[in-house]
């Protein structure tokens, strides 16, 4: 076998702490290595051309590139060797940047390690086989999970691109967090005026099927051919029949039911339409508060409904959808402020969260847009905003910045002055983070034009004094303690990952970080892709995001789906398991082990044998480890290939212990 080795300088990234020329020189001494050289940037145009030239000139059978991580450039170099006429799997990478040059400064030790890694890659390559991808067809339908603004945008863009879209929303209406906002920064646009028409577009688009009040229960399959089961939760109302007239809401006697949409500011009826612009505009019953469902008495709505849509016996139903790609746009939750006991978390009626305040400001909210204290309905004079509640605080496990709280606090301070010209707003802040377009100007307007008083420092505690509250904190610019008397305190709560995010990630087989936010494939270059082919991310499920970024990501995810579906067939990854029929004894252990039921039992000349279903196998290799005979081998990661690497490491270059 004739192998070529190319050691990349990566500018000074590698060459700075690894003697690349010596690595190439040592590689040349390895058996099977016919050519070795070092190159400035292997991944650049001239770098790749150099590899192609060398393959042709030296008639190479395989190539090793020692450079960065294969998670970055393996596909790049596979295409390169393919352009030179080699099979793309006759290529190996030695990671001498992330795993060597960037983590150690000792040139001698680094060079030794790089030599070892190259030797390992060469050893593995001598066992590599030419593999060819098979083609399979794609189901060109897409599922969008989450009907917030990111999901809505993704669904509309896909649908406008001609795709059939299934939109699954957990709550009874789409709209997400944005539909709860009164105005948006930095334009003071009316939130529901700009979101409402988009929500209507979703309802009216012929290509979109909407499942509201539904959750994804399970995901099977692979890119191009997912099978998703959706649990459609009971609403106790036949939505086909319901016209959204709202008569049931007027007559329902359970008027003290929990108002989820209004964030528990105020109450609602047990049967309700969450808000006037809801899509779908259908009523649903909250079973916890409905007297008919809890006590068996009442049934007023059933009697009054003009279309006879009430179904007290309705149960959850399952729908199965076959799609080729999935966009996850499940958004975020707001931090639970009751964890800050010193702020009266949940105990003081007039200490509320920013989203509750947003509902107070909204004309469609429980107070009709009048700012009234929840305790006594009085208009507040002094409103104190406290920022970073559940952001940038290690002690409660939220060390990250939530990104949008500075901006919405400035917006709320401005709106407060608009609603109550006599009022005075105080904002306790740590830093003002306003990096977006026109954002900094906006926060300055809150201070200069609307007279909000910004105090830099954390609040240590809040305590009641008469019917007011005393907010005690520090002014770190003055170097003094400050106390402000407040009629209303608004906590700028930060963002955290949505409840149940890890469970959904497990169903989708995507990764999430320490805080439950979904991980993108590459933080810079693949921001809406996941490591699972065909699953894309949009919006705040990936990390806190404001509206423009969420909409941008929604469109980006849609673009990725449209690009994926621009082909009629996809190539399957040939790095899957293969059964050596002569060795297989048909014991079926691999069948039991396979997490994807990708192996079945067949008969060959009267003997039971295992058979891999190629399109279903994901290439994990658990079967290979299980097989007592070594009969089923994961291609490109066979026992022989891995043991070849072990051999090189443990035998050939043993250091001299003296």
């Amino acid at each position, binding site marked *: 076998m004739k192998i070529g080795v190319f050691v990349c300088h990566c500018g000074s990234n590698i060459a700075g702490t690894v003697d690349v020329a010596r690595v190439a020189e040592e590689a040349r001494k390895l058996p099977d290595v016919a050519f070795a050289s070092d190159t400035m940037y292997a991944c650049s145009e001239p770098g790749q051309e150099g590899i192609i030239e060398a393959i042709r000139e030296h008639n190479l059978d395989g190539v090793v590139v020692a450079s960065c*991580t*294969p998670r970055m450039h393996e596909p790049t170099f596979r295409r390169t060797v393919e352009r030179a006429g080699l099979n793309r799997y006759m290529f190996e990478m030695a990671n001498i940047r992330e795993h060597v040059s960037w983590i150690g400064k000792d040139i001698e030790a680094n060079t030794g390690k790089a030599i070892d890694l190259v030797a390992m890659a060469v050893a593995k390559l001598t066992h590599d086989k030419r593999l060819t991808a098979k083609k399979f067809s794609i189901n060109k339908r897409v599922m969008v999970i989450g009907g917030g603004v990111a999901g809505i945008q993704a669904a509309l863009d896909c649908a406008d691109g001609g795709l059939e879209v299934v939109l699954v929303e957990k709550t009874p209406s789409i709209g997400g967090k944005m539909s709860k906002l009164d105005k948006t920064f930095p334009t003071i646009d009316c939130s529901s005026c700009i979101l409402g028409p988009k929500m209507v577009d979703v309802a009216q688009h012929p290509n979109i099927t909407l499942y509201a009040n539904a959750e994804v229960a399970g995901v099977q399959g692979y890119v191009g051919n997912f099978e998703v089961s959706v649990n459609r939760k009971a609403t106790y109302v036949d939505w086909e029949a319901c016209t959204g007239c709202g008569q049931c809401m007027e007559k329902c006697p359970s008027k003290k039911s929990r108002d989820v949409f209004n964030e528990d500011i105020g109450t609602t009826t047990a049967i309700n339409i969450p808000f006037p612009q809801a899509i779908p505009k259908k009523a649903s019953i909250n079973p916890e508060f409905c007297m008919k469902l809890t006590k068996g008495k009442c049934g007023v709505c059933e009697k009054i409904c003009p279309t006879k849509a009430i179904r007290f016996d309705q149960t959850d139903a399952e729908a199965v959808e076959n799609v080729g790609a999935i966009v996850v746009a499940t958004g975020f939750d707001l931090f639970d402020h009751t964890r800050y006991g010193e702020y009266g978390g949940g105990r003081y009626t007039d200490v509320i969260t920013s989203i509750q305040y947003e509902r107070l400001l909204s004309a469609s909210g429980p107070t009709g847009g009048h700012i009234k204290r929840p305790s006594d309905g009085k208009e507040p004079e002094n409103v104190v905003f406290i920022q970073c509640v559940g952001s940038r605080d290690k002690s409660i496990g939220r060390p990250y910045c939530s990104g949008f709280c500075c901006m919405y606090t400035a917006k709320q301070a401005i709106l407060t002055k608009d609603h109550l010209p006599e009022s005075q707003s105080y904002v306790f802040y740590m830093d003002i983070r306003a990096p977006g377009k026109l954002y900094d100007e906006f926060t300055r307007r809150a201070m200069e034009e609307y007279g909000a008083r910004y105090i830099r420092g954390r609040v240590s505690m809040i305590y009641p004094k008469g019917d007011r509250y005393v907010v005690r904190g520090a002014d770190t610019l003055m170097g003094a303690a400050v106390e402000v008397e407040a009629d209303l305190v608004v906590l700028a709560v930060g963002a955290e990952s949505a409840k149940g995010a890890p469970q959904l990630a497990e169903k989708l087989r995507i990764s999430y970080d320490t805080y439950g936010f979904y991980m993108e494939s590459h933080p810079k270059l693949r921001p809406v892709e996941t490591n699972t082919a065909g699953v894309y991310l949009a919006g705040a499920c990936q990390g806190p995001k404001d509206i423009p970024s969420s909409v941008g990501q929604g469109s980006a995810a849609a673009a990725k789906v449209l690009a994926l579906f621009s082909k009629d067939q996809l190539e399957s990854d040939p790095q899957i398991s293969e059964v050596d029929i002569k060795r297989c004894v048909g014991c079926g252990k691999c069948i039991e082990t396979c997490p994807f039921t990708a192996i079945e039992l067949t008969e060959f000349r009267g003997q039971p044998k295992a058979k891999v279903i190629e399109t279903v196998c994901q290439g994990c290799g658990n079967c*290979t480890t299980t097989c007592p005979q070594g009969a089923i081998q994961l291609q490109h990661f066979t026992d022989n290939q891995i043991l070849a690497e072990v051999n090189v*490491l443990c035998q050939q270059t043993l250091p001299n212990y003296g």
Partner: protein
Amino acid sequence: MSADATELRIVGFLCNWCSYGGADTAGVGRFQQPTDLRIIRVPCSGRIDPLFVVKSLIEGADGVLVSGCHPRDCHYSEGNYYARRRLEVLKRFLPILGIDPRRFEYTWVSASEGQKWKTVVSKFTEHIHELGPAPRLDSEACAQAAAIALQGL
């Protein structure tokens, strides 16, 4: 670097999706680590045959570190559960082969945990240096180890 400045031979088997990514993240973050460890990339920790570990240790490795995705966070749904069962059995089985089980460890590191990877590598390397180079196995050593193992049963 190790205290005596002599590298020992440590083999790491890492799953592609979590720990290999975590090691990459540590690299991108420039988290300085000892240089003794060499990483073999596999698709899933469930792909790691316990015999790979045994073979490494018999053939000259001074330590073997296996790392995969956190339980419940496997790219292949449940490969890391298989890995956990196999590796736990392996750990108990190593003394019977005459191998010091302290030379083998398995951990869970996700792709986002660069800092954790640095800690894992540094601690394990330090630990192996405390144990020193592994004794080369001969028939006498094997018999002795087996006798000790049998006493423990």
